[in-house]
């Protein structure tokens, strides 16, 4: 769909939710309610649940939920097809955060399709490229060690609060040029937006975030610095300055994307590390293989999903999709597709290199992927150097957060 970036309009397609809103073209036998992100079976062990979807559910089915009905794709091959075919599977309106229809804006570049999409990405790609993020590596190592200094003598910590949260969020806020001392407030906002599953709370939180970010943008316009918010506020596109809504939509999207995903990823990985001492030893014995180790850990601990809107009637895997239908690629399930990753639940650091869907694919592939990978790599290396032996505190029940970024609420560790 052609959209006008200077005149943002809400999408015409409406969300549907619940059993009484199943469109007539959906075959009955393809209707399921898996309870992804909120059902008790899912929350008990989300990644095991998603691995087991192969065999339990058809490869492409229609998921009915009180939070929104959508086609669900769990095959690696289908995810590549859907996510790389932006003309049929559009990102417009795919971001689930409710916005004021009278003051609508696009999340940039997430909701913008090519060729405009590339122009926005060019503004920040240097910062987020593999080479760009390397500039942050030494300060990441310092920060990791400072956080470890604070806890190492205690012999225990809640990993989520002591490390997984402050580590990536501090790096991200410094990179953006936003105040690190507001970490707790920002995180509260992100959690309310991403994990409440309540549209009113989401809408209210988005308003709060908007007021703050608009102020921060004005401040950067007046006092430029070398942070990403300032870079966006002063960027030109097509030879013109960006509009206020473009700047806001761009900054807001990065802000939401940067606060919760690496956090959840680290929590998932550390839970696994804590429960698998022999595999930890295997990793430490082969430090030169860290990139492959990390990629494999990302494969089995992916935290998010990619939703799209079908723009025209389209047949996929013999199933008729209609314009306006929503479709969600369950990326963690795709990463357990046995056709691409044999023995998918086995963590194998010597798999042949394949496309892992941790950061999605297609033009909307995660721009923070290189930052995230480097953060996770540095965190693993520095932590294992200083706290090589650790385990989950005895008696702990791991409880997962509902919502669109998968990870445990708390992770108490002892060593």
């Amino acid at each position: 769909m052609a959209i006008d970036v200077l005149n943002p309009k809400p999408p015409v397609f409406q969300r549907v939710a619940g059993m009484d809103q199943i469109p007539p073209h959906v075959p009955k036998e393809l209707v399921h309610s898996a309870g992804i992100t909120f059902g008790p079976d899912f929350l008990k062990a989300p990644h095991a649940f998603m691995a087991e979807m192969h065999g339990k559910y058809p490869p492409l089915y229609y998921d009915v939920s009180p939070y929104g009905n959508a086609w669900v794709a769990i095959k690696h091959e289908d995810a590549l097809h859907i996510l790389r075919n932006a003309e049929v599977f559009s990102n417009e309106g795919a971001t689930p955060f409710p916005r004021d229809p009278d003051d609508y804006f696009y999340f940039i570049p997430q909701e913008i399709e090519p060729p405009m999409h590339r122009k926005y990405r060019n503004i920040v790609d240097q910062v987020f490229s593999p080479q760009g993020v390397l500039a942050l590596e030494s300060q990441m190592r310092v920060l990791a060690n400072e956080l470890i200094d604070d806890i190492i003598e205690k012999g225990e910590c809640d990993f989520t609060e002591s490390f997984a949260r402050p580590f990536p969020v501090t790096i991200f806020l410094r990179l953006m040029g936003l105040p690190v001392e507001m970490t707790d407030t920002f995180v509260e906002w992100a959690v309310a937006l991403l994990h409440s599953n309540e549209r009113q709370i989401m809408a209210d939180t988005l308003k709060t975030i908007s007021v703050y970010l608009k102020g921060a943008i004005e401040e950067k316009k007046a006092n430029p610095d070398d942070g990403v918010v300032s870079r966006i506020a002063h960027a030109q596109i097509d030879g013109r300055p960006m509009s206020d809504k473009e700047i806001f939509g761009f900054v807001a999207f990065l802000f939401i994307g940067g606060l919760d995903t690496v956090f959840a990823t680290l929590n998932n990985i550390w839970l696994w590390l804590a429960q698998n001492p022999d595999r930890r030893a295997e990793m430490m014995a082969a430090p030169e293989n860290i990139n492959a180790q990390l990629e494999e850990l990302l494969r089995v601990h992916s935290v998010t999903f990619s939703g799209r809107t079908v723009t025209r009637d389209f047949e996929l895997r013999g199933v008729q999709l209609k314009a306006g239908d929503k479709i969600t690629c369950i990326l963690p399930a795709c990463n357990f597709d046995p056709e691409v990753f044999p023995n998918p639940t086995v963590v194998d650091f010597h798999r042949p290199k394949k496309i892992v869907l941790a950061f999605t694919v297609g033009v909307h592939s995660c721009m923070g992927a290189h930052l995230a990978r480097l953060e996770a790599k540095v965190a693993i290396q520095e932590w294992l150097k200083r706290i090589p032996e650790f385990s989950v505190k005895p008696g702990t029940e791991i409880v997962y957060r509902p919502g669109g970024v998968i990870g445990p609420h708390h992770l108490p560790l002892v060593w």
Partner: protein
Amino acid sequence: MGKVTYVAADGAATTVDVADGENVMRGALYNDVEGIIGECGGGLACATCHCYVDDAWAAQLGTPASKDEDELIDSASAERRATSRLSCQIVMDPAYDGLVVHMPETQY
């Protein structure tokens, strides 16, 4: 700075300047050369910047630089050939001025 020529599957050639230290995938993206996608941004994670190094450059640049690159080329959509490379892994150097790469019909 060196010249890189990107030859599309239909034979159309585009020559652009690519800075030393910059990779051949980015050279295409920054200059609106179609045919290279590079969706992961150069992270050796997607195989959508696949190219065939011209035979004249095969000796210097026709072989994957790492095991990861070699394996990931198998995930590319277009057929693998003797000089298949991921263009994000070809970093421009004065010695490569005049490099010619051929692009596959599709990256998806």
